[in-house]
């Protein structure tokens, strides 16, 4: 079953066609890689899916719900989770609070917040948040402010902030940048575990060694469109992909 269906999506910035009639589908429960040289439109595509940009044409459907035209917050609520190339967090809040602030709570309504009727719910939420911190290896930093974290830890915190929301699909933008090799291995295992439990994941990654060992399907984007797609082995040996990354050989020019 196709969970996310991107059809004929285009987006330009001035004269630059960042995403050009891009189309592909993502199977429910798959762990997919999205690669391509700088400027291929990968991050723009993430922004289009999560509603931060609106495409000029085309449709993006999640579980047969049209996402185009919806507000980013509503798209997130429908089950799209995403991280950013430069990780985003709530720097003055503790790691635990970063996770708590990422899930809905009845205490976020005015009246319950004043009368304190959210307390029981909050205790469960705190427990749950601690488990999610543990999942990304940040349990020891629960009470530290997010702006005290290292770049890699911040990335893991962002992943945890999205995971705790239980999205249907998770879009990860360069999750290994600045993350130590040990944590990378841990991250890869976590992602595989999540996939096994039914989460659909798209990973944009420049670290091809990491990516091709992780995913089962790869979409290659060049100049805003899909160049090719297939399993990691096919992609590895595809001369077109090599050309796209390294440029054409002198003899071809």
């Amino acid at each position, binding site marked *: 079953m196709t969970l996310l269906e991107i059809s004929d999506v285009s987006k330009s910035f001035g004269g630059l066609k960042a995403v050009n009639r891009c189309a592909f589908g993502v199977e429910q429960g798959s762990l997919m890689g999205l690669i391509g040289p700088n400027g291929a439109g990968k991050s723009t595509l993430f922004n289009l899916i999560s509603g931060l940009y609106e495409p000029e044409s085309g449709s993006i459907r999640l579980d047969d719900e049209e996402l185009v035209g919806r507000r980013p*917050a509503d798209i*997130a609520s429908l089950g799209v*989770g995403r991280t950013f190339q430069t990780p985003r967090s*709530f720097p003055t*809040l*503790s790691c635990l609070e970063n996770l*708590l*602030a990422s899930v809905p709570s009845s205490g976020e309504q*005015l009246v319950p*917040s004043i009368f304190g009727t959210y307390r029981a719910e909050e205790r469960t939420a705190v427990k749950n948040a601690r488990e999610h911190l543990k999942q990304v290896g940040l349990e020891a930093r629960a009470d530290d402010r997010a702006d005290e974290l290292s770049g890699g830890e911040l990335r893991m915190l962002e992943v945890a902030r999205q995971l705790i929301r239980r999205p249907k699909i998770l879009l990860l933008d360069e999750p290994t940048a600045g993350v130590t090799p040990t944590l990378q291995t841990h991250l890869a295992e976590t992602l595989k575990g999540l996939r096994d439990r039914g989460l659909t994941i798209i990973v944009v990654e420049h670290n091809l060694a990491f990516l091709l060992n992780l995913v089962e399907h790869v979409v290659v984007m060049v100049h805003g469109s899909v160049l090719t797609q297939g399993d990691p082995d096919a992609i590895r040996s595809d001369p077109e992909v090599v050309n796209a990354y390294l440029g054409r050989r002198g003899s071809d020019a």
Partner: protein
Amino acid sequence: MNWVQLAITVVTVVSILGVVTLVLNMQYGHAGLINFGVVAYFAAGAYTYVLLTQSPPSETSLDQYVIGLNLPPWVGFIGAALAGLVFAAITGWPTLRLRGEYLALTTFAFAEVFHSFTINEQRFANGTRGLVGVPRPYREELSFLDYDLALALAALLFLIIVYIIFERMVRSPYGRALEAMRDDELALITTGKRSSRFRLEVFLFTAPFAALAGAIYVAYTTLVIPDLFTAEVTFVVWIALVLGGEGSNRGALLGITLVVLFEELIRAIPFDTIRAAQIAASLEVAALGVLLIVFLRWQPFASLTKSTRKVARS
């Protein structure tokens, strides 16, 4: 110098402006919304209270105002709160999408427009002459007590109530969401939360308290003139908030106490000549500026006013 009288004045003014500082702290300190027009809520509450409670204009007087509904004080207070709500809606709705300095400029402009309206529209509240001799609410009912003392206690009670409400909000997931929005609005949105809802709610919920403070202020001054509601009020409240440390309700109150105490102490010095009083008045402003710089540089209250959310840190 009458120390008792001075103490009563300080408590009254600190309580009234303290509420406005707490409102600004919710909007800016917690939600990150820069409001440079906070005086407008205060003024809207004060003017509404007077228009609702004063007697209709008489034919023989020089009054030019046209509205005087002669309603009981409690209606005036409710009306003042509603006026704050309406003003927050008028200014909050169109500025919802504005960030940072743009919001600051727009809120400042709205407040200036209102100020300008009170000066220029004679039929609203006599323009620059304003309305003087406003009856003090519940004077007879409170006759068993010195009225100034009663007013100070009432204002203090109001401050305490507002403090408790705001403190509960701040320590709840609501406060956490506001601070998350302040820290990174996009990060909050991508967790499925509409930040515009929080922005509007904070404006609408807090403004009526500042407006009520304005109505209580009239009971203290017994007059409303545009000169009382200039941008200076906004800046005094801002200075107080920065002195005490934004983001902390305790800090906000500490800041406004310092500022008001400082101003009232200087005002209480008996000067021999008008010239001396004028010099003192200028020095007061300069000294307040120096004080602000010193506090910004060394943040002496940082440890005292640091706010903690016990729910999440348990």
